[in-house]
């Protein structure tokens, strides 16, 4: 069923609003503060790379953007709609925000095609034939049209992650979030996934990508955000960020991952 309410809201959104905006966001897990006073604005079409040491809060940050994590303080807007204002908005926004996980999280009991068709049919009310056509189109775009009838476990890691990207794209999202999409892959499969993401970036998708692939960051990022201990330490365009980082913590981190070479 088409959800009239959501369409109205989307038409009403102010095109001048940034795609994502986080204001003074604090997040605690019990007594542990995972995010400290986060301010972040992502314009439409922007590509943001988030990096930082393990445990610095990168996953938590992007999981707040589609409210897989709730926050205790601050406001989060996606596409001009305030997520922190209530569960109804969360439902509306989740379907507009695609997410790609480190562990792919494909549905193992469904074929690749079924994985890609489920949400469009159930959430957007798209007819089966149309959902299939869309799915096949995106599978072709991530260069695995011939795998449509297979089950996820029959695919390589790189192929599974490309299916996960296609699955998210089938919802025609306004924003795509990636949480270390290549970290669980064998090295020889990293590039095929990065290439898919580069294609997507060049088509103008708004993207927030947690990754340590600095080559990717250099190539597509409009801004690189460096996090440490729950804070955004430094933000900059890739050129400045890599060649001339302002903070010692950033330099130490870049030294460790070899990003300055």
């Amino acid at each position, binding site marked *: 069923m088409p959800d009239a309410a959501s369409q109205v809201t989307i038409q009403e959104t102010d095109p001048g609003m940034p795609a994502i905006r986080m204001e003074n966001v604090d997040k605690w897990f019990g007594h542990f503060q995972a995010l400290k006073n986060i301010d972040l604005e992502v314009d439409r079409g922007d590509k943001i790379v988030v990096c930082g040491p393990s445990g610095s809060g990168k996953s938590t940050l992007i999981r707040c953007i589609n409210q897989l994590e709730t926050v205790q303080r601050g406001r989060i807007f996606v596409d001009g709609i305030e997520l922190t204002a209530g569960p109804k908005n969360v439902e509306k926004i989740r379907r507009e925000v695609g997410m790609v996980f480190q562990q792919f999280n*494909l549905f*193992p009991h469904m074929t690749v095609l079924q994985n890609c068709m489920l949400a469009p049919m*159930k959430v957007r009310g798209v007819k089966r034939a149309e959902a299939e056509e869309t799915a096949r189109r995106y599978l072709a775009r991530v260069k695995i049209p011939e795998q449509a009838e297979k089950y996820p476990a029959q695919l390589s890691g790189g192929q599974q992650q490309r299916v996960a990207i296609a699955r998210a794209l089938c919802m025609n999202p306004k924003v795509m979030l990636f949480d270390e999409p290549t970290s669980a892959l064998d090295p020889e499969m990293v590039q095929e996934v990065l290439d898919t993401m580069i294609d997507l970036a060049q088509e103008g998708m708004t993207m927030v990508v947690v990754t340590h692939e600095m080559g990717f960051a250099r190539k597509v990022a409009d801004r690189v955000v460096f996090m440490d201990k729950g804070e955004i330490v430094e933000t900059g365009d890739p050129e400045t960020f890599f060649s001339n980082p302002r903070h010692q913590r950033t330099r130490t981190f870049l030294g460790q991952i070899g990003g300055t070479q």
Partner: protein
Amino acid sequence: MIRSFGANEFWFIVLAAQWTVALSAVAFTGGALGGLAIALARISQTALLRYPAIGYVRLFQGTPLLMQLFLVFFGFNIFNVSMSPWGAAAIALTLHASAFLGEIWRGCIQAVPGGQFEASWALGLKYYDRMRYVVLPQAAKIAVAPTVGFLVQLIKGTSLASIIGFVELTRAGQIVNNATFAPFTVFGLVAALYFILCWPLSLLARNLEQRFSVATRR
């Protein structure tokens, strides 16, 4: 007057097995519906659903099935509602099966990796679709073996309904034994019939388990 154990007695017992099957089928079907509700309530975010479900499960897991049968059977009669042994047995075993299946299935749902829930949230799937298409099908694969295992327990558990006077397999055996005094023959036959009911289920469980593990591995 002692009768000898003949064809009539034999068929009386064999045909009584249909009541064991009927009672098991009713209790299992009712228990499956109740169990699904209990399992979903147990994992609900809402404390108002979760805590009553936990209490229900604790109560039925912590008391003997026989007491549950007595309480239902005599409970209705106290309130002057006449309740047949069949009705009482069906209700008590349904409540019992709901608690146990609820607990088994809760475990199976929670065994589905968290990433599956997260992926379905992230795609915007609502509760019903998330459960119906993503979570429950995966939980079901894990649930097959323990569920059939419980069904075997349930079939054997229906023998307790004999105590409130419901004539199923065990009660039929008692009746025939009272007339024939051939306990070894009678209860040997009764046991054999239970075995014939339960053993194929055990085989089925093993078979399904293997089939599903192949399906998930592919």
